[in-house]
């Protein structure tokens, strides 16, 4: 029997109700599709976030307040970007590999709502882990933060920038194996050779000048500016560099998602 049949649409949906309805539905779709993975991901992120400071406190018997602040805030900043920049693209690559990508992108949702849903999903994993990283660092490295309101803008901007770079890469690169490889390189580079957990001056001059253009060093500067006082000099140029990278990644995402082979 066909009693409750829903008729095909008579026209196109548009407007704020369509957009917000799509955002809500896509977010629930993504949260449910990560039901088995999400708790594990949060736990692993939290372990990594707190593990860094605990490790440092075990390695060095005494850590000066300045070094402690660098390490503590550095681990928090890395925690904030690692999910959107490295873990999330791997999930998108897996979708391509499992051949489920086409179905996801055939669903009738505004692309912008799908992008915002992805940002929210990454924030759900990243922000609590970042807060835990700060709390554990404060306890183990005996440091105090001086919070100011710019932290809200800085965290938001860094989260959007990191996530959008990862998102743009994952969608732009057709071969999943290449995405996997690139994220490994990024993980190695960001965790090991980026002046987030150490001052920029410690790098060879040529690498320091490269980091003046890349977003990672500047991400560290603006988040530190909201967490500490006197540790770094926050220049507007750091906000501009991160903003420029975020906008570029959004533009690339828009182009890639709008492109049809």
């Amino acid at each position, binding site marked *: 029997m*066909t009693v409750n049949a*829903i008729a*095909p*649409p008579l026209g196109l949906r548009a407007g704020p109700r369509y957009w917000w309805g*799509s955002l809500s*539905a896509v977010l629930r779709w993504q949260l*449910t*599709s990560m039901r088995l993975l999400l708790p594990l991901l949060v736990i692993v992120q939290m372990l990594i976030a707190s593990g860094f400071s605990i490790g440092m406190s075990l390695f060095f018997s005494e850590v000066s307040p300045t070094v402690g602040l660098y390490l503590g805030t550095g681990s928090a900043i890395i925690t904030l970007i690692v999910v959107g920049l490295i873990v999330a693209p791997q999930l998108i690559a897996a979708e391509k590999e499992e051949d489920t990508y086409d179905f996801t992108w*055939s669903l009738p949702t505004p692309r912008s709502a799908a992008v915002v849903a992805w940002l929210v999903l990454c924030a759900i994993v990243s922000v609590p882990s970042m807060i835990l990283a700060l709390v554990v660092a404060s306890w183990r490295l005996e440091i105090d933060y001086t919070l100011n309101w710019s932290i809200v803008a800085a965290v938001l901007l860094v989260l959007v920038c990191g996530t959008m770079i990862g998102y743009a890469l994952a969608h732009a690169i057709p071969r999943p194996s290449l995405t996997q490889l690139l994220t490994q390189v990024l993980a190695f580079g960001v965790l090991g050779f980026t002046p987030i957990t150490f001052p920029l001056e410690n790098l060879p001059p040529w690498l320091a000048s490269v980091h003046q253009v890349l977003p990672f060093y500047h991400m560290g500067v603006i988040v530190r500016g909201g967490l500490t006082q006197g540790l770094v000099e926050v220049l507007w140029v750091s906000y501009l560099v991160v903003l420029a990278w975020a906008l570029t990644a959004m533009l690339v995402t828009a182009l890639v998602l709008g492109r*049809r082979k």
Partner: protein
Amino acid sequence: MSDWVFRAEGVTKSYDKGKSFANREISIEVFPGEVYGLLGPNGAGKSTFVKQVIGLLKPDSGSMRLGEHDLIVDPDAARQLCSYLPQAPMPIESFKLHEAIRLTGEIRGGERDAIAARSEELIEALQIGEWRDTLGAKLSGGVRRLVGFVMVTVVPGRVVILDEPTNDVDPLRRRLLWDQIRRLGEMGAAVFLVTHNVMEAEKSVDRLAIISDGALVAEGTPSSLKIADRGCLRLQVMLSPGAVTPELPSLAREHSRVGNLLTSVIDEDRAGDGIAWARSLMGQGIAEEYALGAITLEDAYIRLTGHVSEEPVEVAS
């Protein structure tokens, strides 16, 4: 007011800078309420064609319209107006069966209560209720396929694209699924059915297009495509395992062999000779049984596409 007719004109899609064609100049019209089959061998360009309808791929030239909407210019409209069951598996490992259906219904713009009621109706109609609370990862391939069908049709589009919907589905539920596909047409949707299962399509589609090497080689109702074979019968002989294909009598117009099954098309008025030939093969131990029947769409399909044999016919000299 839109007439909701799907019209494709001259759709051409090439790869490798024009070296190979996935679609060549395909023009078709599909009307609301119609179940329209797209048949063809693997790699013929059927899936490529429907991916262009939903906006996942873009043709090099040609147009695709649904009523007043240009689906190539406006892929967002294409996604809203068409629903698509891909051939690939659905990403529902972490979803309970009913969650996957209801969430997709919401994404497709349905109201929650209406989706819940319709979802239950379809779950019952396809007899998959016993897995309502089971995670997708634990479902068999056939059940997952049925869930995929319900996901994309609980809130149907004006065009519903089903790419090999019956894959992995057991024979009983396959029949139930065909019922529901027919009902989509009754609800006013135009259904694109992509398949290479000709026997099933013959019973279920209103019209069909046969695509071969990217081009449309025939279009019409299943009966109209069989007109060229009117006055003929199909004689099938099951050869003994290992038997070499016997020399074919002059009465066989066409023949093909798949495994041990030798199929010939013969003239209706020479049915007696055909039976005598088949019996003589059985008498010599070359064949085990035979069957004489009406020409099917599959025979027309073989004639039009030249595809069937998985191994070349070797005729004994």
